[in-house]
């Protein structure tokens, strides 16, 4: 069973619809116990890191997420659900985040429209190109982005894909069974659904390893 975390994020219903469309058996929850018990966890997100952290703190979710990730439960963070995994964020004043992925959330560079809104190419890192998350999705495919901040990830080996917008920022992070994407797969049409489907399959395999 997948747990999709409900902390009031605007894109929750659309993330749920897309996951159900690709066959995920899921529950929508705000309860840390459900998150701890889940076979896989999805953290959707739209908005600011500070508000999101406050909501996750209040629900007791921030206390359990590091544990869930550390024991290898497959995890997918989307947009702000990716950003809060970093150590800190500079959005509306520097503040701590979950510190699961070492790095800092920073504003996209000026000299261009910020937020970035629209479809942009996701280019795989050489070492990550063969990852099952990318099965059937050509390198350089377009995904839908809406964001003003990005994760400046400290360890380049965790950066599975980058996207150019004033700089090449990490658009996908993979760290063991943790997956995090800056774009919205639930709104990225065919390739977005394929990525979610690949995640569901990766989770099924992880489940088999645990069971076996």
């Amino acid at each position, binding site marked *: 069973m997948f747990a999709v975390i409900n902390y009031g994020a*605007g*894109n929750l*219903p*659309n993330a749920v*619809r*897309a996951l159900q*469309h690709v066959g995920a058996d899921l529950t929508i929850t705000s309860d840390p116990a459900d998150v701890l018990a889940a076979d896989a966890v999805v953290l959707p997100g*739209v*908005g600011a890191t500070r508000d999101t952290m406050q909501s996750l703190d209040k629900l007791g979710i921030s206390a359990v997420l590091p544990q869930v990730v550390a024991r290898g439960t497959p995890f997918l963070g989307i947009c702000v659900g990716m950003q809060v995994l970093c150590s800190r964020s500079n959005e509306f004043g520097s503040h701590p985040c979950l510190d699961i992925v070492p790095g800092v959330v920073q504003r996209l560079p000026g000299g261009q*429209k*910020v*937020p*970035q*809104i*629209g*479809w*942009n*190419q996701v280019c795989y890192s050489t070492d990550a190109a063969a990852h099952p998350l990318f099965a059937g999705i050509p390198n350089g*495919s*377009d995904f*839908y*982005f*809406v964001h003003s901040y990005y994760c400046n990830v400290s360890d380049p080996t965790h950066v599975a894909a980058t996207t*150019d*917008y004033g700089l090449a920022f990490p658009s996908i992070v993979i760290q063991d069974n943790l997956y995090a994407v800056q774009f919205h797969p*639930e*709104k*990225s*049409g*065919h*390739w*977005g*659904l394929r990525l979610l489907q690949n995640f569901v399959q990766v989770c099924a395999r992880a489940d088999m390893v645990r069971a076996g």
Partner: protein
Amino acid sequence: MLTRRIIPCLDVKAGRVVKGVSFVNHRDAGDPVALAAAYNEAGADELVFYDITASSDERAIMVEVVERTAREVFIPLTVGGGLRTTEDMYRMLRAGADKVSINTAAVLNPPLIEEGARRFGSQCIVLSIDARRSDPATEAATGSRWQVFTHTGRDPRSTGLDAIAWARRGVELGAGEIVINSMDADGQRTGYDLELLRVLSATVDVPVIASGGAGSPADMYQGLADGNADAVLAASIFHFGEYTIADVKNYLREHGVPVRQSPVVN
């Protein structure tokens, strides 16, 4: 590289898609959910449903149309028309819309933009502006080159607002994107008002979406390349199969405008 977006707009009345010439004389063009799915397959980058329903009963039908669409179509969907409160916005967002578009209600009640942006985020709030070129006397007297109009469907009313100043104010209040519809160009199919687009794009730092006047892929190219628009909205050019999204994208690509590569689905 961020691509420029092609956005078909479907006018919906009582659950059916209609499109008129210059906003009136509606001709039925089918089921919005089926059309949305078809446009998604054809490579549309986003979709807009514009609800031209008058009654609240019919508004409930729109919520249901949005719900059905969101279960089948996984690209960004904007819903506009008749949204007067943040509760109205919430109904559409909860049903599956990613953004809401406001026009007359924002002119009558500018804090609505701010309330919507606070509650849902600026990325959800699209300010749509209907603008008409000022007559020479007005321009001489006020310096305003384009005036904002409301109620453009049935009985257009001048607001006395300058379109560029209103767009700037809307962005200050929290609008995340601006749709600018030229009433002079709308329905003429002779191209967008490029000057309006250029001035607006140079004024606001959020994406500008051109609407009204496209009759060919070349018109869309001009709106993006000469008007500096980030996206183009179009209705009739696509609805009757005159041009496909692929026709437009191929034209744009050949002329050096980056567009999304549509997936080749096996």
